[in-house]
């Protein structure tokens, strides 16, 4: 049954895949993302992040509120290369506050 429940529609990641990641020792969202590829397709996790987080919580017994979401990647939505190429090269847009996983401890 879990093999037929799709949590991430962009990358075809099932509940079974997520349970398998947890059973293999990978229970953090960042790990499950890399282990299953969930959240790396066109929606970038906007549809599936919550579903996967709840599935991990159910599999690990961790409270959902204790889970860190994965780093959000630009762009906001799929955007043609053409539009970026037309941009005025902004070299001063260094987004240092947006380093991976936000807070300074790397999480």
């Amino acid at each position, binding site marked *: 049954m879990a093999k037929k429940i799709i949590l991430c529609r962009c990358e075809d990641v099932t509940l079974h895949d997520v349970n398998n990641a947890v059973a293999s020792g990978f229970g953090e969202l960042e790990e499950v993302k890399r282990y299953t590829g969930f959240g790396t397709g066109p929606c*970038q996790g906007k549809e599936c992040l919550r579903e996967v987080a709840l599935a991990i919580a159910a599999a690990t017994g961790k409270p959902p509120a204790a889970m860190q979401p994965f780093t959000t990647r630009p762009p906001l939505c799929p955007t043609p290369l053409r539009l970026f190429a037309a*941009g005025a090269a902004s070299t001063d847009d260094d987004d240092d506050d947006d*380093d991976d996983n936000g807070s300074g401890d790397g999480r």
Partner: protein
Amino acid sequence: MAAKAAASARATGPLPAHADIAIVGAGIMGLGIAHNLALLGQRNIVVLDAHTLAWGASGRNGGGLRQQWSTEMNIRLMQESLEICGAFAQQVGINIWMRQGGYLFLARTKTTLERLERSVALQNRCDVPTRQISVDDVQAIVPEINVEPYVGACFNPTDAIVFPWPFLWGYARAAARRGVAIFTETPLTAIDRRGDDFVLTTPRGSLTAGRVICAAGAWSPEVARLAGGTLPDWPARHEILSTEPLKPFLKPMVSVLESGLYFSQSLRGEVVGGISQDDPRDSTVRMGSRLGFVEKLARGMIQVIPRLAEVKVVRQWAGPYDMSPDGTPIVGELPGVPGFFVCCGFSGHGFMMAPVVSRYYALALRGKEKHPLFDAWSAQRFAGGGIVGDGDGGNDGSGAPREDMIIG
């Protein structure tokens, strides 16, 4: 949950009191060394990482594997690395999404072309089938390329790309199966000496270790500092992006040496690419994503393949290159810190080198075989703050020939 008890690659519970060998960094290099050491019969290995698997540069790179280098050592090492990768799926039991579509280096100027020519001759002597080709030949390989800005190219059909993530699960699982304990989310806070041993302190507790191997990529200088040593490498942010998946159309990795542009189509169908940026030297690892990067890369990709203009970017991210002052990796025992070994400074090419280098590193640590790389890349060359000669790639006796085919 009815999840079956798959072997956990990650250790849980307290740290063991002692490790014969402690490896710092659970990237492809550290896990590769652990796996190969275990295969050679080494017991009592512990791997520590501050983050989760695939969190660092091993999980952030473009997955290119090429044999087009300008020094014989790098060419031969990468031939062997490709062989290891070819057998990896079967030996380790994981799909690495490997695709041998070749690497195509485009040259804008005669000077670049001549530079490539010299390397091609050496590659051919090593039995790498790289060919110098005309722009017409380029179009025969990738009809979508607008060849107008280029004067020629070189192409090796046996270069390849892989999907980086599975290497980490593969090495980790294989190593764990042989008893290696891999502790992730376990940052080091101190490295002290106690007699001949090291004491490694983490928030999870401490352990003693007979030998420490630092394979922490761009974080290596920080780890060395904890041990009272100094490493001359530094982190350089490199950004990369991925597009929506497309039907397979692009066989080779395409690269322009002058701008450091590269892109390829993964087996997942996405076009993945990056380009060099002129950043001032960083002292700490920074991985923020910038709009300026996508703009620059978009212009570069569209110049090579105009039809990419309508293709949509899905995600961009960054990872740190671990830059060595002379572009050459840094390996072996760190001067002044006996028992502390390093394997770093791969300057953006560590992922592709790791399958072969980690094997030779394990052979050397076990005292079985010392590959010439340990002399050519020795950390001793920086001892006493010595400055490395700015070798011009020639064999003038002033040291090893300098690698010319460094992208980025």
